[in-house]
């Protein structure tokens, strides 16, 4: 039995903070065999990132570590306990024995040096190579990760590559020295689904083609099902369950694992809205629609005589009263732009957009203002949706005060309390400040604010994208329930097909500013017609290894086509 590439023995990491010591990791034991992919799964605060970083000794000064992290050299000549290493010994291990792939490719590539230089840097830090040799190695590794024309692109700067390509470059940097282990920290979280599938494919090839083992840190169960051989589930700094992938998904033992798996939205899974189960429209066709877009175009003007960017390019769309329309697309598809145009935040360039009967093309704010009472908007980022200097109650009361329903936030307090209860937040939260609430709590408060004036139309722009899986499940559940009770029409914007499928009556798929497909959940996601939709669906990993293996095969076929 060969030595495992990395073996973690009873690792405990404590941080010293202003508020006293915080135990981030308590007694974690793991090992990864050569050529294996281990996924470490958990939500925020589970300690998965700290555990992975300790393999390379990348913890801040305030961290105190006990236990052992035994990392072996790729050529088998020895094992080091990383927790004991300092200075140049630690530096040698880094990059040579193990290397890291980070989450946000843009922030880990130095913007002022060409990518080739940055790859060669790692090579030359470990000695021995001349500049020409290092450059050649860099070109090689770029080619192997799938960057076309590497001989030229090796001299390009990071900003000249797309997001997916940048992540490939980051992977190339990690692979340059042929380490035995790659630690991938949420490597695809910042990428679009279709790009994610490509990167996952690359990561999957690593053990076979490069001989490296992989420790994958993620919260996305679909990615786990796609890549992992073994899975370790972490909660509050401890491993609650560890098993090989198929066993874990098929029969999870620990209650947390079961709950986690149950909370993951699945395409074609149980829907939250029973009315969405059929192909018939949820509402009779003769009722006037809330939103009608005809050949809608929105162009962002370019600067200094450069051409503008057409975000929305001839879109037809309708939302009927009481209907939930899911608008799906990747970045650059224009989905957020459409949502903002409907809410009056972005101007319409051409075509027609009628919101609650008013034509938005060329509309004056003064005329539109009275209609704003009937529209609610939930933003994506819970961290910035609230004025940090105002209490929650003051924020939620804002629509009421602005439209004269209440004279001041204090006067509106009764209604605010009602709203908070409706989103399952205790009344006392009204007196708290936004930073004192968690992300999920803030999104619920955001929902309360959007519903304050009982709107006919609610626009939700990626409302749960920034939340943990279990938190997301709860918010979506609440959302569906409120929609059923209050009966507002809703435009639900998301990049996540599974989430949209949970809620929407109809789904509209956008690609580069155009509608490529439209229909009910069953139609669009069950039997997609447009190649882009097919690719989108095929790229989405499902949280079931057996099924995912089959889907992967189909995706590869689709890709060759």
């Amino acid at each position, binding site marked *: 039995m060969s030595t495992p590439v990395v073996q973690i023995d009873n690792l405990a990491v404590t941080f*010293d903070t202003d508020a006293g010591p915080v135990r981030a990791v308590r007694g974690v034991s793991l090992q990864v065999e050569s050529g294996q992919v281990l996924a470490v799964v958990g939500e925020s605060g589970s300690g998965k990132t700290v555990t992975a970083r300790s393999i390379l000794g990348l913890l801040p000064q305030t961290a105190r570590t006990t236990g052992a992290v035994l990392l072996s050299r790729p050529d088998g000549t020895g094992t080091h306990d990383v927790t004991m290493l300092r200075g140049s010994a630690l530096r040698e291990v880094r990059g040579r024995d193990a290397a890291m792939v980070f989450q946000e490719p843009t922030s880990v590539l130095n913007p002022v040096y060409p990518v080739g230089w940055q790859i060669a840097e790692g090579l030359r830090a470990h000695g021995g190579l001349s500049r020409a040799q290092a450059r050649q190695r860099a070109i090689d590794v770029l080619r192997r990760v799938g960057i076309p024309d590497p001989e030229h692109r090796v001299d390009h700067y990071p900003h000249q590559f797309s997001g997916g390509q940048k992540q490939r470059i980051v992977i190339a940097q990690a692979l340059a020295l042929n380490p035995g282990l790659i630690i991938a920290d949420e490597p695809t979280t910042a990428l679009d689904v279709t790009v994610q599938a490509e990167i996952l494919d690359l990561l999957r090839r690593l053990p076979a083609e490069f001989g490296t083992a992989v420790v994958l840190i993620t919260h996305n169960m679909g990615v786990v099902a796609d890549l992992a051989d073994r899975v370790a589930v972490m909660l509050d700094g401890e491993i609650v369950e560890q098993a090989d992938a198929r066993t874990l998904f098929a029969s999870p033992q620990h209650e947390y694992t079961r709950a986690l798996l149950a909370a993951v939205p699945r395409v074609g899974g149980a829907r939250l809205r029973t009315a969405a189960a059929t192909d018939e429209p949820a509402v009779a066709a003769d009722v006037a629609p809330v939103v009608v877009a005809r050949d809608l175009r929105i162009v962002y003007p370019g600067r200094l005589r450069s051409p503008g960017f057409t975000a929305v390019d001839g879109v037809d769309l309708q939302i009927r009263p009481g209907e939930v329309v899911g608008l799906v697309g990747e970045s650059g598809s224009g989905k957020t732009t459409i949502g903002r145009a409907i809410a009056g935040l972005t101007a319409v360039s051409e075509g027609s957009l009628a919101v609650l009967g008013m034509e938005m093309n060329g509309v004056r704010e003064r005329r539109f203002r009275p209609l*704003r009472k009937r529209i609610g908007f939930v933003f994506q980022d819970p961290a910035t949706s609230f004025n*940090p200097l105002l209490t929650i109650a003051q924020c939620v009361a804002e629509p009421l005060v602005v439209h004269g329903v209440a004279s001041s936030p204090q006067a509106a307090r009764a209604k605010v309390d009602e709203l908070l209860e409706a989103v399952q937040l205790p009344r006392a939260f009204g007196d708290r400040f936004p930073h004192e609430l968690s992300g999920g709590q803030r999104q619920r408060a955001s929902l309360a604010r959007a519903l304050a004036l009982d709107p006919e139309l609610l626009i939700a722009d990626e409302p749960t994208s920034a939340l943990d899986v279990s938190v997301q499940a*709860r918010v979506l559940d609440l959302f569906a329930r409120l929609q059923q009770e209050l009966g507002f029409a809703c435009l639900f914007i998301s990049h996540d097909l599974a989430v949209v499928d949970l809620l929407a009556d109809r789904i509209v798929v956008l690609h580069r500013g155009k509608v490529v497909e439209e229909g009910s959940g069953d139609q669009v996601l069950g039997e997609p017609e447009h190649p882009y939709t097919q690719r989108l669906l095929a790229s989405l990993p499902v949280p079931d290894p057996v099924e995912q293996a089959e889907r992967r095969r189909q995706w590869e076929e689709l890709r060759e086509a």
Partner: protein
Amino acid sequence: MTTTIDKAPQRPSVLKRLPVVHQLRSSVGLQRGMLVTGLVLVAIFLLTAAFAPLLAPYGFGQLRADGELFGSQQRPSSDHLLGTTVGGFDVLSRVIWGSRTALTTIVLAVALSIVVGIVLGLLSGYFGGWLDRVLVVIADAIYAFPSLLLAILAAIVISNGQADKWGGIWATAISITVVFVPQYFRVIRAEAVRIKAEAFVESARVVGAGHVRIMTRHVLRNSTRTLPLIVTLNAGEAILTLAGLGFLGFGISPTQAGDWGYDLNKALGDVTSGIWWTSLPPGLAIVLTVLGVSLVGESLNDLADPRLRTRRRAAALAGAVGTTTAVPGGVLSAGPEGVDGVDLLEGPDATPTPEEGARSRGADGDDA
């Protein structure tokens, strides 16, 4: 997941949350030392200015006591602890009275420039458009120009070279205002532009709030985070400019008020003869006052920026990490928007820019 009795962290009492007190308590080591030293020096300055009549042995323009002339360039003695100037005035008294002049000038200058700078910066940043672009070009032009020279011009104009007390003070104050408005303008404008794009401002727009409400309630309140820092920086520069003007001959005549710069101007010739007591005291007064104010500013800046702050064996903060608060012209991180894309208050663009194929995501919180 689990049902919730949602708990919030305990909030410390109001007193402990007051701005400077909060920094004092949360700072450590060098930064605390700097802050404390700075505050002590500033306190001394303020007290001296306030109690000048009680502290100074003689008046600022006093040439004689008990019918006897002081005499000029007298060495320090028991009658004149710091000696007398070439004009025959008591050095110590003039230094003490000079603090009052300095304080008055700073207060005037800072007050004027803040108001004008904030209003213009807010309007410009919020509304954008051609007004914004024009103002930015003007502000950049003035900002890049040596402030002392502009101050000289302003002083000429206002006082026509005359140096009566209020004329002198106003001349200095207004000239300093002219050169400092662009600074406040730029900082507030950059903040306004940044905050305007935040979700909570857009939320207010969607709700239908009017411009005035959004500007005052949302944008303004959140833009003023870095103001205390700039105020301290500008107070320091105000004193230096005042002294500079005095040194160049635009000081206030000694019979009208104490003026450190004026004293230094007159002391220049003394230095060659080895007379040190006429130049050292006013000079040191300037140094200590500006030092105090700058130390407070430096430590405020450090404490406000989580990246620069030393914590008690620090680790992650609760709450969002803010952007760098380094300030142009003083504690420095970026220049005027001559380098497009280097945002005023953020350093090299370290925040990731979502591009095609990427979307931003931050995993966030538990409910339990």
